[in-house]
């Protein structure tokens, strides 16, 4: 293995490759900030450009840079304007945006960068050592286990069930699941619940719903409340002084990063689950592990609540390379696109790659280290400038936030019906916020809904019933864990209430 690492280093460590890694990170960060252009689309867009280079290692290094840059760029728009352009960074907005509201935008971005870096780097180390072993483990997961994993992901909504809001959170999750059933599904043969509207045939677009639920209400509240927008703009001095995290905060997030790197990586290894569920689960697990005072902070700008999903989604993105490199199975959308790049470069990922083209295998791994390091070096100095975006006067900021949100749903589709739908969801979200229904569960339900139903359906078809729940020990364990996740917060509240009485 040492030989391989050295070989990879030798291939990757040239001036040209370093330059392309930096370029890729920069391009990825800039484009990734636009909602609607997540890592998958950015990598796909960059493939034709990068193939012009000719050298497979350099091409893959550039693409890895773009990939990591795009993930970080996505978290930036989540944190700054509550516009998660991609499912994997939804959980980042839960605590990142409240932090930005409190004038800690710089700190939030720094934490995001550090967590992403650590998650990615630890993920690569795990990938290097355990890839072959994990690959055989991952294929033991059947649809029954995936179904249980989705259930576990859904249990993350319990994190938003504040006082007397358990039912509201459940209701919102159900609403999200209902919205996810609109349109065609992979399991059945005709579109459902489209009410005859052609635009709903392919289902509700994630970006449309996410922007409608998160960004539009935010623009609205900023517009009606002058003080609210001042809160973010007048704290210029604080933003800059508050950039660095102090030792106490570093100590608080270090264990979170450690745990979530491993957990996120393991979830990412399962083909088809990926960064989204890893980030939700990471958030839920860390909330349950936190002390009662810290738990109160979750959702209101907790540094742990920001570090957890950011670490987990990066570790999971790295983990999704395990099945790609060792089995040739793309475990996520982005790795599927990368598989295309591999094939265009005349490389066949799979068990033979390590034997036939070891220099490529190792330079991919080394380029992932590179991508992470360059990302940190490049973005930490940029943080103060990015954070200052919030100091733009409201006459410019608010229309731009609104435009930004809509552009995400419009770009690539040129369909204005999508925008009307987005604004409709926006109005709905404003009403729901006035009535104090938590919105994140709705999005979690929506994101996991499709996979939930598909895997439940497949598992039930395989077993011809629901026996799979108790016949497969792994499924049972995961479902019981989900039950614990949901019941523990409820019981805790109940006991606290009883004690008070």
């Amino acid at each position, binding site marked *: 293995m040492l030989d391989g690492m050295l070989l990879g280093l030798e291939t990757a460590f040239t001036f040209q490759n370093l330059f392309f890694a930096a370029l890729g990170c920069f391009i990825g960060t800039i484009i990734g900030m636009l909602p609607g252009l997540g890592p998958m689309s950015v990598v796909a*867009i960059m493939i034709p450009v990068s193939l012009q280079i000719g050298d497979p290692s350099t091409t893959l290094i550039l693409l890895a840079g773009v990939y990591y840059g795009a993930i970080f760029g996505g978290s930036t728009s989540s944190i700054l304007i509550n516009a998660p352009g991609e499912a994997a960074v939804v959980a980042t907005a839960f605590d990142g945006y409240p932090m930005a509201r409190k004038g800690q935008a710089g700190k939030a971005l720094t934490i995001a960068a550090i967590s992403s870096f650590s998650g990615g780097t630890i993920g690569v180390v795990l990938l290097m050592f355990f890839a072959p072993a994990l690959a055989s483990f991952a294929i033991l997961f059947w649809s029954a286990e995936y179904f249980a994993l989705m259930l576990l992901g859904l249990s993350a909504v319990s994190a938003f069930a504040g006082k007397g809001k358990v039912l509201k959170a*459940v209701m919102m999750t159900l*609403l999200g699941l209902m919205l996810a059933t609109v349109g065609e599904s992979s399991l059945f043969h005709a579109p459902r619940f489209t009410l005859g509207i052609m635009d709903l045939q392919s289902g509700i677009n994630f970006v449309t719903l996410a922007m409608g639920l998160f960004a539009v209400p935010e623009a609205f509240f900023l517009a009606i409340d002058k003080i609210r927008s001042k809160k973010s703009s007048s704290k210029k001095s604080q933003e800059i002084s508050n950039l660095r995290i102090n030792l106490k905060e570093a100590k608080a997030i270090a264990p979170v990063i450690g745990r979530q790197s491993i957990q996120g990586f393991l979830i990412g290894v399962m083909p088809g689950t990926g960064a989204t569920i890893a980030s939700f689960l990471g958030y839920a697990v860390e909330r349950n592990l936190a002390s009662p005072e810290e738990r109160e902070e979750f959702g209101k700008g907790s540094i742990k609540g920001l570090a957890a999903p950011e670490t987990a989604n990066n570790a999971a993105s790295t983990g999704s390379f395990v099945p790609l490199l060792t089995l040739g199975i793309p475990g996520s959308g982005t790795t599927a696109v990368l598989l295309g790049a591999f094939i265009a470069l005349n490389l066949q990922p799979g068990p033979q790659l390590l034997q036939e083209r070891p220099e490529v295998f190792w330079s991919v791994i080394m380029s992932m280290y590179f991508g992470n390091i360059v990302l940190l070096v490049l973005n930490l100095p940029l943080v103060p400038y990015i954070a200052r975006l919030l100091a733009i*006067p409201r006459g410019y900021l608010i229309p731009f936030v*609104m435009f930004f949100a809509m552009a995400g749903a419009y770009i690539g589709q040129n369909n204005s019906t999508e*925008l009307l739908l987005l*604004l409709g969801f926006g109005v709905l979200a404003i009403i729901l916020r006035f009535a104090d229904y938590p919105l994140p569960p709705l999005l979690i339900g929506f994101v996991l809904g499709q996979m939930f*139903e598909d895997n*439940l359906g497949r598992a039930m078809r395989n077993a011809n019933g629901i026996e799979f729940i108790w016949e497969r020990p792994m499924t049972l364990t995961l479902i019981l864990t989900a039950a614990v996740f949901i019941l523990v917060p409820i019981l805790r509240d109940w006991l606290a209430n009883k004690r008070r009485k």
Partner: protein
Amino acid sequence: MLDLNRAVALALLGFSSGYGYLAYFYHLLPFEKFLSVRPNTMPIGLAIAGIICSLVILIQPQVPEVEGDGTVNRPDAEYLQNPQNYNWGQGIGLLLLAVVYTLSLRGAGFLFSTSAFLVLGGILLGERRYTFLIPISITASVLVWYLVDQVLTVYLRPWPGWVYY
């Protein structure tokens, strides 16, 4: 009393029932009747859960908005309690402007509608330095179009739909 909280629960009850109706009377294909999971299995379950859940929210006692010890349970409810402190005109105006923008995209093209949206949005929100506002808005929309259409080669129609170029 029917406050907003309960009104929303009522609306959700209606939605769940309507969804349940559509799910229950979903037209199954002949062979789908023999599947262990039918296209409407999960939707029916969701609808039932949704109806139960919204009913319970509807009838359960309300959590007070502000506790005795001063903790606020409904952070956004402030806006409705003291509506006179907030400029609703700007918020609602912005949403209406966004609808107009959406409808004008096809007729007027991306460049023109976006510039107009950003300028009018700025004016609506109290920006009066037109010499800054107008050039910035036009530059921004051209820049976004250039980045998306020319650099990333994702088609974005710049001119009105009836202009061929």
